[in-house]
């Protein structure tokens, strides 16, 4: 029996939530950004702004050039997380086979449930109706229905915004023949270019390509590509109830031009290490491998290194010292660090390891526990390291993180 997979994608999500929250923004081209005066990117654009050619991730200067009357609004992760929690609560009533793919995208396997609603399309219609009633009229979703996840996502993309699309079996050959390989999730620009070099442009051509060639060129991924080219994808919908173990804890930040010196970058890094340590203690994990990455200027590439500590840690100060050691080995140009990041890997549950016997380690643990209690009670900004006060507050950008929140839905 063929599976019925639903891909539900919220339309212009962050921008729609802002328009729902503030009716005076409705009908206007808006862009969600960090601080409108900062030189950064637009993390989401409204459907009205898309008509001017604006895209997510576009630099702010380019967005303003394309649409001079663009309204820029600061984003709020707590708003988006709340709306996500609310639409997931609705979807959970339809099926337990619900995979949270991102903050605004889910997959559902409704093979068993669709018949109760007279099919997948009426079911999708009912879901959209519930969204309208509970979330508001401006927050809409597009639904793609197909026998697998890849095709469902592709169909949803073709029915945006606010649409419902279903792929029927007889439509598959035409879809494969007309879809460029780059349109499929999982085939990036590099793979697309490599395929184009040998004359593979559409999914159908990919499906006809010799398996040996794809395996030689792309390894195991070549077999996945071959299957995609034939309209097949056996990857299961991973239910939201599945507990995925945390593999790493990290934070990163793009720096505005006025903070692009090595001294400022290291101060930002100090704050990031503090947040990584705080999150690790909340999760009850310790880690041994510390990775720190930097980007120099806007055009140069990313560089990073890792180091392994003698003992696993969840202490921000220890993580920062490891980052400093990494930084000393990298010989960075000091004048233009545009991005800093840190992550801790090689994690283990803290409870499964013996505690340190050294008095200075135990003192640091007590100090961290006291700091955590203060932050739990009075908020994240209630107590900070003295170093972070040396610079004025770093602008809060929207993309990539939620202040102090774990994304648990």
């Amino acid at each position, binding site marked *: 029996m063929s599976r019925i997979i639903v891909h539900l994608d919220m339309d212009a999500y962050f921008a729609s939530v802002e328009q729902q929250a*503030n009716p005076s923004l409705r009908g206007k081209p808006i862009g969600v950004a960090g601080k409108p005066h900062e030189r950064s990117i637009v993390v989401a654009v409204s459907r009205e702004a898309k008509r001017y050619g604006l895209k997510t991730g576009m630099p702010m200067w380019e967005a303003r050039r394309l649409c001079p009357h663009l309204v820029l609004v600061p984003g709020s992760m707590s708003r988006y997380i709340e709306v996500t929690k609310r639409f997931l609560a609705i979807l959970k009533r339809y099926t337990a086979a619900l995979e949270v793919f991102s903050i605004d995208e889910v997959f559902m396997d409704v093979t068993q449930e669709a018949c109760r609603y007279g099919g997948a399309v009426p079911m999708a219609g009912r879901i959209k109706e519930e969204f309208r009633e509970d979330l508001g009229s401006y927050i809409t979703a597009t639904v793609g229905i197909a026998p697998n996840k890849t095709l469902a996502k592709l169909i949803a993309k073709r029915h945006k915004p606010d649409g419902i699309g279903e792929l029927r079996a007889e439509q598959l050959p035409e879809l494969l023949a007309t879809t460029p390989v780059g349109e499929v999730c999982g085939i990036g620009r590099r793979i697309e270019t490599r395929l184009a070099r040998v004359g593979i442009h559409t999914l159908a051509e990919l499906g006809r390509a010799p398996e040996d060639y794809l395996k030689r060129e792309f390894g195991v991924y070549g077999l996945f590509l071959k299957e995609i080219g034939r309209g097949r994808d056996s990857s299961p919908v991973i239910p939201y109830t599945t507990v995925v173990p945390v593999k790493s804890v990290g934070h990163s930040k793009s720096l505005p031009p006025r903070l692009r010196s090595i001294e400022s970058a290291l101060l930002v890094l100090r704050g990031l290490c503090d947040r990584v340590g705080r999150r690790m203690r909340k999760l009850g994990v310790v880690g041994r491998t510390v990775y720190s990455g930097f980007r120099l200027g806007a055009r140069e590439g990313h560089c990073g290194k890792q180091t392994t500590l003698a003992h696993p840690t969840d202490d921000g100060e220890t993580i920062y010292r490891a980052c400093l050691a990494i930084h000393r080995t990298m010989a960075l140009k000091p004048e233009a660090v545009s991005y800093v990041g840190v992550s801790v890997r090689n994690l283990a549950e803290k409870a499964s390891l013996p505690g340190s016997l050294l008095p200075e380690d135990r003192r640091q643990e007590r100090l961290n526990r006291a700091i955590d209690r203060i932050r739990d009670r009075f*908020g994240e900004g209630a107590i900070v390291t003295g170093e972070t006060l040396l610079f004025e507050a770093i602008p809060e950008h929207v993309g990539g993180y939620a202040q102090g929140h774990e994304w648990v839905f």
Partner: protein
Amino acid sequence: MYRPIHEPIDAYVIYNRGAPHPLLRAFRWDNRRFDVTATNLVYPEREGEARIFCYSVSCGTDHFRIRLNATRCLWTLEAVDAES
């Protein structure tokens, strides 16, 4: 655009059984009563232990951002986007 206010207000609310937050029906600010005609969005936030609810409401053509500190039962008008 919203204009910041940050002033305490009196609120007229309904506590519905089972609802995650009270329903804001009207509020009094600057010696005027504003009747809420639409609740556009309500979302929770945390400030340490304090549980905050942020209301985005409309009163006719004017729009308001209101905060409820549920721990202290304190209502604050945060910002106004008013035509009048």
